[in-house]
């Protein structure tokens, strides 16, 4: 199969590389354009959810008119059951810092921020030490780049990049209208590159080993590796770096408990894949692959046959109802309606056909919600309701 391959564990991200100084000083000897090309040819896509090509992101900001610009590392990891950012920041922080500085060099920014999830406050002292050491080195090689940690407020929605910037500006964490995009007007209205933790670490790999090494991993549209947080009914929960493009069948073979009935790929905003579709589903970004989902946050949650899919959906909807920022109508009210709606069907207060009305509602949410959160509720809702309709009713 050209479009998927055997599951393969890889070790790039956590590999301890004690030569970050050399990587940094060598990398910034190259021209920004060269580095952008390197990233573009690696086909690295953002690991935060939307899968936007990272090289293009950097390029757009570098092309924005000169003046104050910013680099932000999004470490507001809020997806239930995932903690890969935490692992990266505690095990290989210097890779993140190096990547941020390179990004600053490319984009023309001398100030970086790490937006750290409120619950990760305990990481701050160590991280600050690392930043001190890092900034000291930057000074030595005459690289003007500073990094500041910004503590998040604990709202899931602040992981959305424009809500995050609002929150950094001291405002309520509500997603902004786009356009303008952060590359034109981001933090404080200045051009800003915002990448999540894992994406930055991949750029380190690319700058150190070259884009080919990265490109050779994975499949078309989904190059390289990705961290996955494996949880649920599995004998080996944990964080794994896997080559993109594996089939879900293989994944379940490796991580399942022998009785897996479905896997939720990509967390609450991802899709549920039922057993009968495992072999057609490959894990990567949208593209030619069949039955694919975006690996938001890299969460992979396995469910065995003892699980009620109604409860699973109920939990997700509960989560969305609370974590919606509440500003836009389709998301705020839509989530309440979906949650109450499935309960009403289950109780028999609404006929089974009400599920179709709710499915149409999720379509409206997908078309009209202001940000990715509200737009993606449809994913888990429709994949669960369509595949496990019986469980919703009886």
């Amino acid at each position: 199969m050209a479009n998927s391959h055997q599951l393969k564990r890889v070790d790039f991200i956590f590999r301890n590389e004690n030569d970050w100084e050399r990587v940094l000083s060598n990398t910034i000897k190259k021209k920004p354009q060269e580095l952008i090309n390197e990233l573009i040819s690696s086909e690295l896509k953002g690991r935060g959810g939307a899968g936007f090509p990272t090289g293009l992101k950097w390029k757009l900001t570098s092309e924005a008119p000169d003046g104050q610009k910013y680099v932000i590392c999004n470490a507001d990891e809020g997806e239930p059951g995932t903690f890969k950012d935490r692992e990266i920041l505690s095990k290989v922080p210097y890779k993140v810092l190096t990547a941020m500085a390179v990004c600053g060099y490319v984009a023309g920014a001398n100030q970086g921020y790490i937006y750290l999830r409120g619950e990760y406050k305990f990481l701050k002292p160590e991280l600050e030490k690392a930043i001190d050491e890092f900034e000291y080195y930057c000074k030595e090689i005459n690289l003007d780049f500073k990094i500041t940690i910004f503590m998040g407020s604990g709202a899931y929605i602040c992981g959305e990049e424009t809500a995050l910037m609002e929150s950094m500006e001291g405002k309520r964490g509500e997603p902004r209208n786009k356009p303008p995009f952060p590359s034109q007007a981001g933090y404080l209205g200045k051009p800003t590159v915002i990448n999540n933790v894992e994406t930055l670490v991949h750029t380190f790999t690319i700058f150190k080993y070259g884009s080919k090494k990265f490109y050779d991993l994975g499949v078309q549209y989904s190059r390289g590796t990705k961290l996955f947080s494996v949880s649920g009914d599995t004998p080996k929960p944990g964080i794994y770096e896997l080559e993109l493009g594996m089939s879900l069948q293989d994944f379940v073979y490796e991580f399942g408990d022998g009785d897996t009935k479905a896997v939720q790929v990509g967390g609450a905003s991802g899709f549920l894949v039922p057993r009968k579709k495992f072999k057609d589903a490959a894990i990567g970004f949208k593209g030619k692959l069949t039955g694919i989902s975006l690996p938001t946050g890299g969460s992979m949650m396995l469910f065995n046959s003892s699980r009620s899919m109604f409860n699973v959906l109920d939990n997700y909807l509960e989560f969305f109802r609370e974590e919606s920022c509440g500003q836009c109508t389709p998301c705020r009210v839509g989530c309440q309606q979906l949650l109450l709606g499935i309960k009403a069907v289950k109780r028999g207060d609404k006929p089974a056909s009400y599920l179709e009305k709710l499915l149409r509602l999720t379509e409206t949410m997908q078309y009209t919600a202001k940000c990715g959160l509200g737009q993606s509720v449809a994913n888990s809702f429709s994949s669960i309701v369509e595949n496990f309709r019986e469980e919703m009713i009886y």
Partner: protein
Amino acid sequence: MSKKINLTINGFPVEIETGKTILEAAEKQGIKIPTLCYHKDLCVAGNCRVCVVEVAGQKRLSAACATPCEEGMEILTNSLKVRNSRKHIIELLLTEHNADCTKCYRNGNCELQTLASEYKIMTQDFIELVPLKKYSIDAYSPSIMKDDSKCIRCQRCVRTCAELQGVNALTVAHKGDEMKITTFFEKHMRDVVCTNCGQCVNHCPTGALVEKNYIEEVWEAIADPKKHVVVQTAPAVRVGLGEELGLQAGSRVTGQMVAALKRLGFDSVLDTDFTADLTIMEEGTELLTRLKKALVDKDDSVELPMATSCSPGWIKYIEHMYPEHLGNLSTCKSPQQMFGALVKTYYAKARNLEPDSIVSVSIMPCTAKKFEAFRPEMYDSGYRDVDYVLTTRELAILIKQAGLDFDKLQPVKFDRLMGESSGAAVIFGATGGVMEAALRTAYEIVTGREVPFENLNITPVRGMEGIREATIKIEDPVEDWAFLDGVELKCAVAHGLINAKTVMDEVKSGKADYHFIEFMACPGGCLGGGGQPIPTNPEIRQKRAEAIYAEDGALSIRKSHENPEVLKLYKDFLKKPLGEVSHHLLHTKYTKRERY
């Protein structure tokens, strides 16, 4: 130099300047796209999502209010996908909304109701959420009622309070299904920095924020044969009332308004303009006295610049935000309160009435005036000086309830004694008007000549610019004011509290060298007041302003110090400006308040 771009809307070509939104392009084509969170006075929020439209090639719909036009866009404003989504959104809003329209104060003038009616939402398939919510009503403020069950969370009020007023009394709290509009620490509006300006009321699309109304109280007073009910009407009401009764913005309805008030049964229909002229006499004299103390006596305890004090929203604002500057305020009461104090003294005596048989009602473009009438200082007549304050909107309700065909009423004049108005008093209703009125009088007192502007129109202080400045050089004064020879009187005008803030920050830092500043809490001055007809927007306010200046131009008396009834008042009762009686009845003190 702005470039044009071309696109199509529903298949028809449109040419528009770059930077315009889809909503603006559609408006240009005469296509109305429904909106709720959008308001011409405010920044774009893009949160209600009813304005979504389809852009060819995109799966997701775009919010027309928040999406800039791009070259070659093909936009559909009424495709099936758009309609279905829009209908869903309206239905969703209605499930959270206590759609008890027949019992709602905004029944008949509610943007949500209009939309629901346009889209013929006849059934309720989704689950009713209202019974599951713990909505509350805040009715403790004397000015404003807030009913969360009517709120659609468009945040227009929050943006109004922040962007137009810089007060930030209202904020968004919580997230998800619990997200709501509230105040700091969720206190009652009465207990926060709210200035009662009512701009949030004027900008709310629904019945979630409304004025506290005193309609029944006034009907009862009118019906009570033992009561003598006096009514005063503020300058801006006469250029707003018509809108509420089906006329075009900018209609001047002074005479019909008086006729209507008489038919409603008020015993005496008088004019706040009369005390606006009186304010000029008192405030003008106060300014000149302060200048004299500062320039001749070199008394450095004199607080300059002197700030006007007729806008109660502004008064409460400065009390909270710049309590150290209360000494800069003129001690003059607002015209409403001067009127109230005189009604139960001067008027009662002249008409041979017991003051406690008088019910004093005022019709104001303002919700802050309701609060003002409640202030403990406002009992100088020995009674409550003003008993009930109604907004322009409430007056329209009285007129409708009484079944008056407003259009057919023959214009009538105000009653005498306190019913005469100069043009200077009328322009109190527009931003810059108090300044202009004061200059017309003060300049003439000082120099013995009229202000050196054609037709007495001091155009530099007119207009809608947020902050305006003017300098008038005093030359060749009469003997008493010789010390002012050559002095350049520096004046500034600010309207909308966000602009007041800018000016006050300069005053605070000592950068401002003005002598006299006019502050009005509301955009456009009283004509854009929180009690004026809804909707409001820059064009409407412009029309009302034009009407005000036309009214001024049409009056034979244009200067406050020539108002014969004011002169008579001084002769028979007050004796002289800033005299003892004035001091007792017409001047007041201010209260320091906290910010939180």
